[in-house]
Each structure stands twice: as C-alpha cells, then as structure tokens.
C-alpha cells in the first residue's frame, strides 16, 4: 500500500525498458553479466520447458528410469485423455466466465469509486477512504470462515458466484484508480463543466479515456487474481460442474496422481493463456507487479 501512496501511477519509472547505467559505449566486448544471466534465465524457464515437453511425451517415458531428458517422440495422448476423460472444457468455460465478470466489474466499480473518492466532495468521504485503506491490513485467512458461512446463507455455495463475488471489486483497485485520478489536472474537468457537461458526462467523455493505462493495470491485476485463485473455489465449490480450472487441476493431484502426461496437459491449458498474454503485454504486467503485492 505504501507503493501506492508514494508513487502516483503516472510517474512510475518504466522498468521494462529504462537502463540506469551510465553508458559506456566505447568498448563493445560482451558483458560478463551474460555468464550470470544465461544460467539464471535457463533455470527460470526450465519448469515451463519441462511442462510443455512432458505434456507431449509418451506416457510410459515419464515414469521410466532413468527418464529421458527429451521425449523420443511427440504424443498427444495426454491432451486426448484430458479432453475425453475430464470436464476440463467445462472448467475452462467456468474460469473464463469468472475472470470476464471480475474484470468488467472491477473496471466499472473501481473507476467509479476511485473517481468519487478523488474528485467529488461529499460527507463521509474521508471516512470511506480510511475504511477501505484499513481493509488492506486484513488477511484473507481471517475472512475464509465467515465468508464461507455468508456465501452458504446467500446460496452462493456450489456455483460460480462463490468464485466471482470475492473479485467484483477490491481495495487495491479503488486505490489504484483514485491515485490515478488525483494525478490528473483538475483544469480538464473544469473546462468540461464550463462547456456545460455534467459530472457524469465529464467522467465518461473526458476522464475515462485518459485512464486507459490505469485501467489496463487494473484489468491485469484482476485477471491474474481471478484466474489463478484457488482458496475461494476450494472452500466454496464441491460440485465438479462448477470447478474452476485451478480447482480442477489441484484436484487432479489427488485423483490422477500418476497420469503425468494428462496432468501436464492440464497445466499447459491452465497456464498457457496467461503466458501468451504476458508475452504480449509484458510492460503492463510489470507495471501491475510494481504497484501491488499481488499474491503477497
């Protein structure tokens, strides 16, 4: 939360591209840092490489000893088994629904609240901000039991509601948007008001289009959290039909422990969308990481 308070969104340094080293362009011999970075990068990529290789390996090779480092042939048996024997498609659909609803709701509700807390004057505003700030201190674990009971009273158990409701809005989202709106010059809105637009029109037509970078950060934050969430589905969903991808594959650990190609194929299905997304929007992901202690 301190990062949020001390650094308005707009002034964050872009760590994906800016090098701080003073340039020493004269000698162009390769840096010694490669000797450190090549093995490190290799180690960080290794689990993913293993995951992809194992997912297309012949099943018997994964449990043979000594196991080959590289599969002898490509075998899609794991994926076939995954799609024919398990409800993975259903789980994928569930997760896509959960994440989509969460992202849309987050963007709408948090930008509204962020704008209200940043710009509108009303009684109780300070109290509201402080209360929301205070909730950041409360760990999820403290909320598990009462939230479970609350959900079961509201009839949200064994349905997607249990996975969606915790991600409809967040203190982080409200704060992110508030900090962003505070960083905009008030003259923008005043100009709009003089032209006869009301608050609502100013917000929709002038302010929101400027907020795209902050909204992108918020969307990624919500996507990562809702897609990868395990705790809420775990405590609230018992019916296989409503499993999310994460809960489904975590459950495989018990039921299909030895079917490694199938497990790895499931892992690929659950992880690949986010990996691809990361490769395309690395800058925004890094921004999101910097601004939050995601998965803290």
């Amino acid at each position: 939360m301190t990062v949020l308070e001390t650094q308005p969104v707009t002034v964050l340094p872009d760590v994906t591209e800016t090098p701080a080293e003073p340039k020493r362009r004269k000698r162009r011999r390769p840096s010694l840092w490669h000797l450190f970075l090549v093995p490190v990068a290799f180690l960080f990529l290794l689990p993913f490489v293993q995951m992809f290789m194992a997912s297309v390996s012949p099943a018997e090779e994964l449990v043979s000893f000594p196991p080959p480092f590289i599969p002898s042939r490509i075998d899609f048996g794991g994926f076939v088994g995954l799609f024919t024997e398990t409800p993975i498609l259903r789980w994928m659909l569930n997760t896509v629904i959960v994440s989509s609803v969460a992202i849309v709701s987050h963007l709408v509700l948090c930008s509204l609240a962020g704008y209200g807390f940043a710009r509108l004057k009303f009684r109780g505003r300070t109290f509201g901000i402080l209360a929301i700030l205070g909730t950041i201190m409360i760990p999820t674990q403290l909320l598990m039991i009462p939230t479970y009971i609350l959900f079961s009273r509201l009839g949200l158990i064994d349905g997607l509601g249990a996975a969606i409701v915790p991600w409809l809005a967040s203190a982080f989202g409200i704060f992110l948007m508030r900090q962003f709106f505070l960083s905009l010059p008030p003259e923008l809105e005043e100009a709009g008001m003089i032209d006869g637009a009301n608050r609502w029109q100013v917000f929709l037509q002038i302010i929101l289009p400027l907020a795209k970078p902050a909204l992108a950060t918020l969307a990624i934050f919500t996507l990562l959290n809702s897609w990868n969430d395990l705790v809420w589905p775990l405590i609230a969903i018992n019916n296989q039909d409503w499993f999310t991808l994460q809960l489904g594959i975590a459950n495989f650990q018990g039921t299909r422990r030895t079917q490694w190609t199938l497990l790895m194929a499931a892992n690929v299905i659950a992880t690949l969308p986010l990996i691809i997304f990361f490769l395309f929007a690395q800058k925004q992901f890094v921004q999101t990481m910097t601004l939050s202690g995601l998965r803290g």
Partner: protein
Amino acid sequence: MTTTAERVTAKRGTPPAQRSRRRLVEDLGGWLFVIPATVLVLGLSIFPAAWAFILSLQKWDGFSEPEFVGGEQYARLITDEDFHAAILHTGVYTAIFVPMSVLAGLFLAVALNRKIRFIGFYRTAIFVPFVASAAATGILSTYLFNPQFGLVNNVLRVTGLPQQGWLEDETQAMWVIALMSLWGQAAFTTVIYLAALQDVSPELLEAARLDGANAWQSFWHVTWPALRPVTVFVGIWQTIGAIQLFDLVFTTTRGGPLDATKTIVYYLWEQAFKRLDFGYGSAVAYALFFLTLIITIGVVIYSRRRGMEAF
C-alpha cells in the same frame, strides 16, 4: 434524477434551507459513485472480520446451535501442540523464503538493470513464472522433484551425487516449497528493486566513479544505502506473504510428510473445513492476524530507529 440539473443551476447566496438541500444532493451524487465498490469491499472484509471474532468466542460446527465459550478457544491455542508445530513450520518456511527472495530480487535487479544484448529475453524469462498459479506450480514441483523419475534427481544421478527424497522427505519438503515459491515470485521483488534502482541518483554514481570508486564500492556506498527503505518494504511484504503460506502446500504435500509442511493457514483450513471447528479455526485466524501485525509494527519501529523509513 434531478441531482445534476439542480447542482448546475444552484448559485451562491441561496437561502440556508436550499443550501443544505444542495449539500445533500452533492452528498448523494458522491455516494452514488462510490457506493457499489465500497459496499462490496467493506462487506467482504470488515464485516466478516468482525464476524470471525464473534465466531472465535463460540463453539460451533456450522449446523448445531452455537455455544458461547468466551476465551476458551484462545486458551486452547496456548496448549495445542499441533498449533505450536504449525507455527514452527511456518517460521521455518519464512526463515528460508524471505531472505532468499529479497536477495534474489536484489541480485536479479542489479543484473537486469543494464543495457546489454538479450536483456529483454532475460527479463521475460525471469518474469514469466509470475503468471503460474499455485496449482500449476504445485504440479510442476511434484513432477520436477519426484524422487523416482524427477528431473532434479536425474541430474543428481548423472553428476554422481546422492539422490534425495525432496517433497517426500520431512527435512527437505519445506526447502522445495520455498524454492518453487521463489521461482514464481522472484519477479515481484526484482521488479520492486528495479524501480528503486531508477531512483538512485546518477549524479552520485558519476561522482563516485570520478573519485575512483570501483563497481563494488559505488554499489556498497551509493546504491545500497538508497535501496535500504525498499528492502524494509519488500522484507515486510514477503514476510506477511510467507506467514500466510497455504496454496502451495495444498497443491504439493497437503501438510505432509509427517506434518512437516503443515503451516498455520493449512492448520486453520483443516480445523475449519475438514473438522468443521469454526470457533477454533477463527481463533487460529485471529492469532495469525495479530502475529502479522506484531511483526509488521516491530519491523517498522526498528527501521525507523535505524533511520531507514519505508512507510
């Protein structure tokens, strides 16, 4: 709704009754913007947090009539040896993971903070595991560290080193979990340090260079002092996360072998959702909350005294 029209036409110097009415309208307009998100956030945090406290004073299994027992659940915490063991396991994990992740973040950030060939590739490689979920990381851990055919033991075999039990060995399981957490989270500490490195004054670094300082000296005397506040922040953040370890234990060892990886939150989950002891589970949750608070406040006070404020 007449709110906006009224606000636009309202002028200064209106009679008091109309003024207070206008104020009410302004209040309403403001609350309309903030209320949905505020209700959701507070309703799913402060309200359940208060409820958890009430639950912790009760004996309740979710079905029968709850029975008020006062501080009995908290008294149980003091004598419950399984809970003490859970604190110990959590402490072991925290002691392994936090220094490792802070140091890794520092090293990687310093290494990545330069303009050399392939730097984009290196950054991507180190950052991309951040998107891996606990469930995916769990399956990968059990695969890579499988004692019979896992890659890690295979490498040990090829290099002639003794093979290990890893997740099936009670002294090693926590190390494997910490290592795989590090794999996924190194990106976070690295990114925070990278951002902090941008703030280190280039003038000071240049001055140090002109004074004949070598790379190590200018790091130690210029860069590191500037990174101390962010180190406190990252340390606290990672500690809070480490104390709350649950997901990766659930997706790898489920608390085993021989309960060696049963952390506080895993114990809480077991008490609440396996044994349906909501009262005791809530007491464990509150104990965890206070532990987190005490550690945070302690570190903040300590670092303020040492003059490296992070907050």
